[in-house]
């Protein structure tokens, strides 16, 4: 009797330690995959990185070439997306937080979350039918618009969450002093939530910088420096895709170097945001 009780007890203890080890192993596995991918990119990327690579345009295989125009294109389309998507996203977020406790707010919230989960290639098709088909050609404008739509619901939801963190006593204080509601939102609540909104915006920018699928047939690609939004535009991600799927070793090396730039940028933004918000977690 005492014996079986002891063995049951031992079995429970063994199961307990076994599961602790197993769950820890899952965590170790995921983190080592991350470290492996990042170090692989660093090793492969650095070996073919040069200043010329960062400023050149793509050239026929064997003549070098670079990603200068892709960097400019990515920057221009991201900038357009920020100019269009950020103000609208912040405004929508303010609405959800300050006026959105009704059926309409609930619907917008629900649809925004669902829109975040919709594959970005669908946004690409949408912009293709809306902008590219009427214009008759792919353009930086179309690419930037697609990125803006991807950014919009993300910014709206993070803004809402940040504004909800602003204590109600601040709103009440301002209202009690006779400020109209819009002044309270604009001059009191928004500044108080500004740093949180900014970090959310930075994460959204990091996200759209890495997007490829919505640019494939909206912005297409270009072999040249292009500073006009009505022309097809190159981007880092589409350039990586083209180099990676190309048949030549040289192209693959350039894909890794371009990836180093892209992933480096995205990781720096993420780590910087983490550093800024470390007290909140």
């Amino acid at each position, binding site marked *: 009797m005492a014996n079986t009780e002891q063995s049951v007890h031992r079995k429970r203890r063994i199961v307990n330690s076994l599961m602790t080890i197993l769950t820890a192993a899952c965590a170790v596995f995921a983190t080592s995959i991350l470290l492996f991918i990042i170090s692989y990119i660093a090793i492969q990327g650095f070996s073919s990185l040069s200043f010329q690579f960062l400023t050149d345009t793509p050239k026929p295989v064997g003549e070098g070439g670079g990603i200068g125009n892709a960097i400019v294109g990515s920057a221009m389309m991201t900038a357009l997306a920020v100019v269009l998507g950020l103000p609208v996203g912040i405004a929508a977020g303010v609405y959800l937080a300050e006026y959105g406790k009704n059926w309409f707010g609930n619907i917008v919230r629900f649809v925004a979350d669902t829109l975040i*989960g919709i594959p970005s290639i669908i946004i690409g098709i949408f912009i293709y039918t809306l902008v590219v088909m009427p214009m008759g050609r792919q353009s930086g404008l179309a690419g930037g618009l697609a990125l803006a739509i991807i950014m919009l*619901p993300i910014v709206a939801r993070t803004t809402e969450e940040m504004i909800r963190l602003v204590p109600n006593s601040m709103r009440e204080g301002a209202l009690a002093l006779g400020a109209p509601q819009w002044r309270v939102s604009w001059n009191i609540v928004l500044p108080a939530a500004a740093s949180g909104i900014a970090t959310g915006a930075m994460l959204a920018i990091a996200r759209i910088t890495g997007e490829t699928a919505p640019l494939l047939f909206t912005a297409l690609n270009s072999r040249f420096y292009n500073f006009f939004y009505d022309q097809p535009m190159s981007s880092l*991600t589409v350039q990586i895709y083209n180099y990676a799927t190309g048949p030549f070793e040289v192209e693959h090396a350039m894909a890794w170097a371009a990836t180093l730039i892209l992933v480096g940028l995205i990781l720096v933004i993420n780590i910087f945001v983490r550093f800024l918000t470390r007290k909140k977690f």
Partner: protein
Amino acid sequence: MAQTGAIGDKIFRTILLLAAASILLIVVAIFYMMVQNSLPTLERFGIGFLTGSEWRPAQEEFGALPFIYGTLVSSLIALVLAVPISLGIAIFLVEQAPIKIARPIAFMVELLAAIPSVVYGLWGIFVLAPFIRNHLGVFLQDYLGWLPFFQGRLTGIGMLTAGIILALMITPIITAVVRDVLEAVPTTQREAALALGATKWETTTIVLGNAASGIAGAVVLGLGRAIGETMAVTMVIGNSPQISASLFEPANTIASLLAANFAEATDRIYLSALIEIGLVLFLVTFVVNALAKLLIMSVGGNSSSSKHV
């Protein structure tokens, strides 16, 4: 004075309302434009579009079944691999690890989600595919080769590679949501179980039971991401519209079909077929994401998926 405030309020509120409404408008417009532009094939093929298994654009034959099959199977492989690992990580982070260890690990798992899809694709082509061709695939064929799933020629490019890459990509999302859901379970439940003499693991199983619908929501959210994941899959799946039991064979998903072919589709009926299959993807991911959100909301976990982009 009070009057100007009232007018200002009205203008301000209207501007905000329009911004919020734009989100609804975009989703409605996506649906409308896609239906509008896929009318030629919608009218011509009807339901046969979804059940046909031959895809020959040159002969104007459009059967979407191979892509639906590829999307389902690759997502299923991803879930089978990612769900246990994600659960393990989330349990470790919430129930077991001290906060000093949990924080950096949680951050590193989040960083996995920050890596762009095209980078996973690049890594898949040059690291994972050779690994499967030379090691994992050989191992599977040696020991499980009698199963139809593991027969055929090993190229490293195909359904299994896509499924594994997808698993890596959805792990951080499932982990993040399960973490939120577990954290929403009241501590008193753990204390009660421990006080009754349960071991740490037995306590965890009780917590898991109470968080079940939220965990289901996390899995469904992961499924939604896997279904729609585009670039990485396009780069490693081989882009071949065939239905094969073997996981080593090249296949194709809806998203990868669109990524690889949309830019070249100039002919009206081909374009319509691609947009129609895109519409299918849109509707499926919309429903899957809505379902995930409802499940996660039901346990009071942080329902905002903006944290999990």
